[in-house]
Structures are given as structure tokens and as C-alpha cells.
């Protein structure tokens, strides 16, 4: 298994990733390749989760990784670690893509993207410890907390859309997302 960035006692690995990204910002292609080895799989898996379509996911992950190279000098460790920075870019790009497609195709098609039950966690062959731990922590949330978080993050829905899908008030969704993320954080031991 690859080094684990989060969750878990991964502060050391996080610090290494930050150092790698700092080297990347100075034009070090070797450091970029090392960063690729660590983060391309989570980035691709996440994008694939949101977009579903393999060809589009391949395009988007390439764009994202090139953007990481181009904009590495803008990475600010104070705002979160390198993994968070890269995966935030990946998620943002995937969500932007899925929303512009949905806007073009009409909203009805989007209902097909509701993640199936039990689909919230990686289905890759490597049933990693991360995935197993996350599965257990997600199971400890209330239904609305869990579904709000997975619909928003893996489904790419805005919180008003999530509220509509779950037939829950807007304010409730916001607080369920916050409470759910806080509980997840405690359960996962994210530093």
C-alpha cells in the first residue's frame, strides 16, 4: 500500500508531500513525478467518482495535474497540506465539469448520478485501510449527515440540490454537513 496522507497518523507523510510540492514550485520535474506517484490515484479516483465517465475523467485528471505543475508556486502550506491542495483542485474541476454538463443536458439526467447505497467508498481492488476506516466512520453518522456529505462530495451536487433530493430544509442540510464533517474528523483522527 502507498503511504497514507490522511486519515491516520500521517503527519510525517504530509510534511514530505509539502516539501515535494515546494520543490515542484521551483521547476523540479523529478519532484513532480514523485508527487504524481503519491497523488495521481486519489485525484483520478475522486474525479472518476464525481464524473463517472472514464474518458472525461482521464481528460480532467490530466488538466488537474498540469495545473498543479503550473500553479505550484501558489501553494500555501498554512492553508492546508499539499494533498488537500491538489485534491481540492481535482474536486473543483470535476464538479465544475459535471455541473456545466448537467446545465447543458438538463437537470433530469442528473438524478442518475445519485450514488448508490454502499457506493460511497472506493470500489477499487485496493480496499485500502483508508477506505475501510472511512466506511466505518461514515456508518457512524446519521443518515442525513452521511447522505448530505456523499451527495455533495461524490455526487457533485450543490447543497440546495442535496436539500431537494433528501427533502430536508436548506438550513438543516448546512448544519448536517458541518456536524457530519466534524464527527467524521473525530472518527478518522484527521490531524
Amino acid at each position, binding site marked *: 500500500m502507498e503511504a497514507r*496522507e*490522511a486519515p491516520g497518523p500521517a503527519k510525517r507523510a504530509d510534511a514530505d508531500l509539502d516539501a515535494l510540492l515546494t520543490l515542484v*514550485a521551483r*521547476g523540479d*520535474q523529478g519532484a*513532480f513525478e514523485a508527487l504524481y506517484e503519491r497523488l*495521481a*490515484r*486519489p*485525484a*483520478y*479516483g*475522486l474525479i472518476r467518482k464525481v464524473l463517472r465517465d*472514464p474518458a472525461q475523467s*482521464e481528460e*480532467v*485528471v*490530466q488538466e488537474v*495535474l*498540469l495545473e498543479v*505543475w*503550473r*500553479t*505550484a*508556486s*501558489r501553494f500555501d502550506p498554512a*492553508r*492546508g*497540506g499539499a*494533498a*488537500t491542495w491538489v*485534491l481540492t483542485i*481535482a*474536486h*473543483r474541476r470535476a*464538479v465544475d465539469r459535471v455541473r456545466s454538463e448537467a446545465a447543458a443536458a438538463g437537470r433530469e439526467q442528473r438524478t442518475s448520478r445519485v450514488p448508490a447505497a454502499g457506493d460511497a*467508498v*472506493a470500489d*477499487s481492488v485496493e480496499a*485500502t485501510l*483508508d*477506505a475501510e476506516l*472511512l466506511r466505518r466512520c461514515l456508518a457512524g453518522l446519521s443518515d442525513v449527515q452521511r447522505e448530505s*456529505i456523499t451527495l*455533495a*462530495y*461524490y455526487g457533485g*451536487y*450543490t*447543497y*440546495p440540490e*442535496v436539500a431537494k433530493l433528501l427533502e430536508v430544509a436548506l438550513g438543516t442540510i*448546512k*448544519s448536517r*454537513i*458541518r456536524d457530519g*464533517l466534524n464527527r467524521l*474528523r473525530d472518527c*478518522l483522527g*484527521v490531524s
Partner: protein
Amino acid sequence: MRLPRRDLHSLAGPYALDALDAGERDRFERHLERCPRCQDEVRRMSQTATALAMAAAAEPPAGVKERVLAAVAVTPQLPPVTTRDRPRVRLGAAPRAARRYPRLVTAIAAVAVAAAAVLGGLLAVTQHQLDSAQAHNQEIATVLAAPDARIASAPVTGGGTATVVVSHAENKLIFTSAGLPELAPTQVYELWLLGPGSARPAGLLPEPVAGKTAPVLASGFTAEDKMGMTVEPSGGTSSPTTTPILVMPLPQ
């Protein structure tokens, strides 16, 4: 829907999950700039979201790594934002940066075309660049957009990397480099097409920008030719006068 300011705090969770629409996202980001408590909250929640991403890890398709690394080799990076430059409002950043780094921006535009074609996924960028770039860039884009375009990189003796993109159908190639040692003002890097017993001049490398040279276009080669590079007196020569620091086969 516009939330009163005090309610903006409640958007930290949806923001960390990218669950705001574009308008609300912009509004929250402006608020975030001056709300340390929100910054803390967003950082913690984003780290938790990172755990959700890590758990979804899956192997990218074959070829992604090679294409990304090839694109990286020809793509310049943004300069760091210094504290003095850091805009108070995000939207102010682009025009200021463009004024301060006109040459670099031009180089990025030129090479972005190269990178875009390497990555089929950036076709929109290619189109945009085609719309605004000069004829030189369009010719380069033609090579890169050729269905048979192939890319190869090789180390240069003494330091640096050379990257060649070839379309045999168009009989055109593009040469870029990164990290070559700086030359004396009286010297220049010259490119050659090396055939059996012949060396034809294929252009001089421009001054590097941020360590990279803008694409040089060459044509009139055969599949068996090799790409060569030597250090020559300024202005170049008609045949190599020094030992080549690069001899690489053209990608087929």
C-alpha cells in the same frame, strides 16, 4: 439567494465540499479573505474531505502519466505571488500579473498550445490560443493537432532536457528545451537535422524564459534523421563546429 453576512459562516461546510453554486462560492471566498475563524473551519473541513478523496483512489488509465510528464516538460510555471503583489480581492490579480510579466505570459500562451495538444483534454485552450496567437503559433498548433503527432524527450549533455514533437504526415517538428545551461552572450544553441553523412541547420534556440525556450519549428526531414544540438557562435553556422550535446532519434 443572498444570505445576510452573519449567515455566511454557515457556508463553510458546503464550501469545503464544493457544494456552493458559482455566485455563492465567490461571495463566500470574499468573506473568507477577512474571516480567520472561517479559514480555520474551511481548512479543517477540507482536510476531512481529503480523507474522502483518498478513500476513492483508483489507478489512472495507461498513458496518463507519460502524457502529463511530457506536458510538464514543455509547460512554464507561474511565478510566485509576492506579498506586495497579493491582491486584496482575487479578481484583481489577472491584469496586474499580465502587465508585470508580458514576455512570460506570451511564452505561456505559446507553450500552452503545445501542452494543450499533448493533452487532448485541453482542446478548449487550444482553440482559444489559436484564436489569438500569431501565424507561428498556428503552425505549431497544426503540428500538435496532427493525428500522428509524437513526443519524445531526451537529456542534454551538460544539463537540461530537450523535447521534440514530430508529425511525419505534416513533415514538421517542434523543438523545446528546459534547464539548459546559460551561454555566454557570444554563443547560441543551434539545432541540426542529422542524416547519414549530413547535418542541416534547423534553427537557433531563442533566449530561455523561466528556464524554457519557446518552440522552434523545423521541417524538411526524413524519418531516419536525428535531432542534434551544438553550441555555436552567435548567429549560428552552416555546419556544426563543436561536439553535439544532443543526438536524439525522431519519435516515430
